[in-house]
């Protein structure tokens, strides 16, 4: 990677992550006002995976996600105001208020859908890749899934079909060690998740999920492979969720995660890591300051716009049910 390219890459990844972080923090801050009346699953701490993977994709490529979708939606280019309006239950929301935080879509950005039934979108991604293949479109379809989601049989069935037909699917497993309050070791035996994917015939890749550059590099390789017709890629990234599973707060007072573990992972903040790199470069500090300002303004504007959104009408609902 030449230095100039690398600096611009660092900047762009940094900015995407910072934006996600600030959006999530703003949601958390404003949640107590009780105007975002839906569950929210924040991505704070896990921004590097969304940023790194989506940077390797084009706008035409498709992305699916699940309950913890804000980061993926934003990294793929989803509209921020439409997301916030959705969380506020407004008519301008990306689902016109029908979905809330757990349902996200932005077709223009190639964000094809996120829903909260765990595993539900994994086969959809495979189906979308299948359609792309049959229609002669050179698309890669990515689906983000958690370590817990990997336990669902439907994921295994989806991988089998994707491998069988060498479909252009990138499975990104964000292994944050927990599903809700339940540690991985209570749910899965001691064997790597990616080992199962490899045995199923996926091309397995690994990346430090808190290092956006590493994720980007590996994801770029994966995407290139998929475009050249190689078998599906299963990319496992180790990472950690900072806030509670669902909701705006920290919940480490509950004691389900060792304090040292939390501290260790927070020390690997994906954003700080890139900030350190940036700070070592000319104008890096300026870029950071500038980004903070721009993002802060963007977020404030987006919240203002979302809050000013209109109230969706019950009468419109039946029209959405059938084509």
């Amino acid at each position, binding site marked *: 990677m030449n230095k100039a390219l690398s600096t611009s890459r660092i900047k762009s990844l940094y900015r995407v992550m910072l934006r996600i972080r600030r959006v999530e923090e703003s949601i958390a801050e404003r949640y107590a006002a009780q105007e975002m009346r839906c569950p929210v699953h924040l991505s704070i701490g896990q921004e590097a995976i969304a940023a790194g993977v989506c940077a390797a994709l084009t706008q035409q490529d498709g992305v699916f996600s699940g309950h913890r979708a804000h980061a993926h939606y934003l990294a793929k280019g989803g509209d921020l105001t439409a997301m916030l309006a959705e969380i506020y239950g407004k008519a301008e929301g990306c689902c*016109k208020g029908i979905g809330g935080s757990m349902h996200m*879509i932005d*077709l223009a950005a190639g964000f094809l859908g996120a829903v909260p039934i765990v595993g539900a979108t994994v086969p959809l991604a495979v189906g979308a890749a299948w*359609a792309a293949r049959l229609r002669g479109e050179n698309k890669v379809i990515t689906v983000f899934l958690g370590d817990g989601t990997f336990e669902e049989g*439907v994921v*295994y069935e989806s991988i*089998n*079909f994707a491998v069988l037909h060498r479909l252009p699917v990138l499975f990104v497993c964000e292994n944050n060690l927990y599903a809700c309050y339940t540690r991985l070791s209570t749910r899965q035996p001691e064997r790597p998740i990616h080992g199962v994917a490899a045995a199923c015939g996926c091309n397995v890749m690994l990346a430090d999920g808190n290092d956006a550059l590493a994720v980007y590099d590996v994801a770029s390789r994966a995407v290139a492979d998929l475009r050249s017709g190689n078998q599906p890629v299963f990319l496992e990234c180790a990472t950690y969720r900072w806030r509670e599973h669902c909701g705006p707060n920290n919940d480490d007072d509950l004691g389900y995660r060792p304090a040292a573990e939390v501290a260790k992972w927070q020390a690997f903040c994906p954003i700080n890591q890139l900030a350190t790199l940036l700070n070592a470069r000319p104008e890096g500090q300026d870029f950071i300051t500038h980004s903070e300002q721009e993002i802060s303004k963007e977020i404030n504007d987006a919240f203002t716009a979302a809050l000013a959104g209109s109230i969706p009408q019950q009468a419109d*609902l039946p029209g*959405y049910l059938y084509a």
Partner: protein
Amino acid sequence: MLETTRQITQAEAIREALEQAMDEDERVILIGEGVPDPKGVFGTTSGLQERFGTARVFDMPLAENGMTGICIGAAISGLRPVMVHQRIDFTLLCMDQLINNAAKWRYMFAGQVNVPLVIRVIVGRGWGQGPQHAQSLQALFAHVPGLKVVMPSSGYDAKGMLLAAIRDDNPVIFIEHRWLHGITDEVPTLPYTVALNKAMLRRPGKDATVVAFSFMVIETLLVAKALVDLGIDLEVIDARAVRPLDMTTIIESVQRTGVLIVADTAWKTGGIAGEVVAAVAEAAFNSLRQPPLRIALPDLPAPTSHHLSKDYYPDALHLARAIVSHLNVAVADIELVNRLHRSTPHDVPQREFCGPF
């Protein structure tokens, strides 16, 4: 247009609908366990892979939930998949994808994406189909907003409704009955559609309305024919659509006859027959001259032994007895027996059927 018709079996009618749908729209693909195999899903898919190639006509792994999700993913990405299950019982493995995703995807995303998906499912019966291979689960689907559900009984409707279902932009559960596949009907050669939301008056009559579903239409028409000699004139409605039910046609008929009888292929309690009764009771209460009646399966899983399945499935004679008694008409039972006793074995669709499936 539809002038040229000929007698073909319902299995052939279904096959023809698939072939014509694939011909007219290259986005239509066909997938299911056994679709390209030598038996071709009871002949309904035979030759289609040869004709349309392996990219459009697919076999699949045994993975109902995953494969349904994959078809949904394809449907929201520009294809129009038709998925086949040899037994409706297998769809219990994919209720998640059908109900959580297919039925809701368009609605959840406020109409931004359609799910043009057809799920063909076959209800089994007889010759040892037993508890896990003979369920008639239409009520489970009929409860779910976002799905369309149909159960044609004639070959004509099977072809026309399958073509309509494939052209429809919504997920449609297309329920076939194994015992209808072999029945022949006059079917046009050209493509045509039959609406997915309309019942059909199969026989006008003045004494009672019988709303029948799927194979029960066949039995009910036998009964109507037999009873007319005995002075009972039944109006027979082939429901065809299960979700939405065509309550307009049904209520108009009940307003004429004053009596509602529903004959369903499923368990009675919680079944779609109850929905018909409830909807009529709500909307046309004053037209009802007497209590409505449901004729359906007992609330028991299907037994396998042919000795036990004999009285499990209400046949024409059972139906006639129930109707005569309900209408409180004095008819000697022997008259019914003479007219409706089934001389062929009770557990096979056609006399020549000799297993194994």
